[in-house]
């Protein structure tokens, strides 16, 4: 029964919020607004998708925001300075993401540094790197890139489809492939996974690389939407991503939860609140407070849940 509440609590809260904002501001319930909310969700959804895989391992990667910033800064420099095409530059950004993710993986798997501290360290380092190469300036991106970032097919934004596809793909990889199941196994019990000879090290490393790539992609899509790279890019995104994952009911102890529903519900919760407060013209200083509150509730629920399953085992 408690279980049920924990599992369906957030969808319920979500529905409640939608109704509330809808009543306060009818325009909130329009299709356009729904699309707008999905559009605004894109960067965080992509980043949180990578985070979700790492959390499924029972680990965390809080360097994703910095990776996004670093990757996109690199891309902007290539476009600005070397005159690369946005597409090529974006590809390069993903490359940077993969490299930095691999560095995280190396530190965690080979140097066996606690993932929190490892990625805390790389988070500082990567942000420093990005600020260094951009000299922390605002860089305006070519229209082509911004048009891509806001390109719609019918009522739907293309990047929403892209993010959706990625989310679904990662979800399927996690559910339907040996690699994905190994992730869950490690999240359940890393020691046992080693005992029965699962490729723990390789899997963990791969997850950090994926998380890096998606972090960079999140940065690219975010920058494409606003058509500029500023130092705000990816700032605090790591924490939002963790929050999204937790709120989405993916256990921080690892191994439990659904990538697709977790990330989707989590991201919706936060974006609906932001957009709703915008619509009703509420005091925006309120956001952060509400955000923190939601994380706390979600975590408490997660802790109870985890204890329940612990008792069952």
């Amino acid at each position, binding site marked *: 029964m408690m279980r049920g509440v924990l599992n369906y609590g957030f969808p319920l809260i979500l529905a409640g919020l939608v109704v509330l904002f809808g009543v306060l501001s009818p325009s909130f319930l329009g299709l356009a607004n729904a699309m707008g909310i999905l559009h605004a969700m894109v960067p965080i959804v992509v980043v949180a998708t990578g985070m979700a895989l790492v959390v499924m391992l029972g680990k965390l990667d809080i360097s994703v925001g910095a990776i996004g910033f670093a990757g996109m800064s690199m891309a902007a420099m290539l476009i600005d300075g070397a005159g690369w095409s946005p597409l090529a530059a974006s590809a390069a950004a993903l490359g940077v993401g993969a490299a930095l993710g691999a560095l995280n993986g190396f530190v965690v798997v080979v140097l066996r540094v606690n993932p929190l501290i490892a990625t805390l360290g790389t988070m500082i380092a990567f942000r420093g790197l990005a600020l260094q190469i951009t000299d922390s300036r605002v860089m305006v991106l070519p229209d082509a890139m911004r048009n891509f970032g806001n390109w719609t097919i019918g009522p739907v934004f293309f990047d929403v489809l892209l993010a959706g596809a990625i989310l679904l793909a990662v979800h399927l990889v996690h559910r339907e492939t040996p690699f994905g199941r190994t992730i869950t196994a490690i999240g359940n019990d890393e020691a046992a996974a080693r005992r029965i000879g699962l490729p723990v090290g390789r899997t963990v490393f791969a997850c950090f690389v994926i998380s890096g790539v998606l972090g960079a992609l999140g940065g690219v899509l975010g920058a494409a*939407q606003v058509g500029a790279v500023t130092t705000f890019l990816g700032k605090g995104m790591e924490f939002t991503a963790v929050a999204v994952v937790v709120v989405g009911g993916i256990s921080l102890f690892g191994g439990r939860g659904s990538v697709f529903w977790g990330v989707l519900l989590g991201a919706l919760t936060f974006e609906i609140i932001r957009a709703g407060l915008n619509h009703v013209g509420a005091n925006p200083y309120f956001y952060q407070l509400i955000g923190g509150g939601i994380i706390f509730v979600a975590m408490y629920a997660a802790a109870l849940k985890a204890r329940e399953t612990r008792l069952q085992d």
Partner: protein
Amino acid sequence: MNYSITALAAAAVLAAQGALANDITVGLSWNSKTQPLEAAWEDYMKAEAERQGAAAGVTITWVINVADADPSRQASNIEDLITQGVNVIVARAEDAGAIGASIRAANAAGIPFVTFDRASGTVAPTAHVGGDSYDQALTTATAFADLMKEQGIEGKCIELQGALTDVNAINRSKGWTEVDAARPEISTLVQVPTEWNPELFRSGMANALRAHPEANCAFIASDFAITAVQSALEEVDRWAPAGDARHFWLATQDLLPGAVPLMEGGYIDVSTTYDAFKHSEELVRVVIALSKGEDPMCGPDGCLAKGRVVTPATIATIENLWSKTYK
């Protein structure tokens, strides 16, 4: 991070040279360097120091440090400038309140303190030099209201505010709101604060547009990330140059490099420049005056360099507009 050692090293150098009466060291403390604007200011200051310095027979040495948007770090940086014993301190405050402590410290050490661009909310500095952000908003808003009147349009506007920790953001909102109250041609539908974060410029504008489809104009507290607004407008197909029926009337502040081509293209209707060049010119004048122990003759709100109103009509002809030339 603070620069105490840099400062001390410089001090040592000066000592070695045996500082002459007409050699002055100016400590410049940036709160952060995240926009081309700061770079422009710095370069113009140095250039002006050469020019005016030569005229006044003064050689100016700069000691510059950056606080990365951390008030306590800026306090540290300024303390270092004081321990070094620079002749004048110039600071762009990160926090309108926190800068007071540094001003107090400088006063105690008998070093003249000039707040640049962002005024102190607490202790009064020796002098304040900056753009007149309030006047900036007034001129833009008035020009915009005139435009609406001439076009015979009733302007229903969205106001995108800056970060409310920033005196300029507050002044601009104040200026706009006053004109809005005084002129029937324009009215504000909703105020959206952005913390100067482009993502919020875009999503905030987009949400406001959906909440108020009748909106036809916007006042934007700074156009450093104007492309974010462009995205939001394109989303509802309102991004078109003046003359086009879909045109969405835009009044912006600063006319920063990113905005120049857009005004040239007729997307931005009115803006008031944020004149890095004039600020720097004025600052150097004040610094030299202070170093000679003269009164810089500032107004009640400080020595303010007013911005110039620019429209698509005038942008081609306006002179030494830094954002046109600066990259």
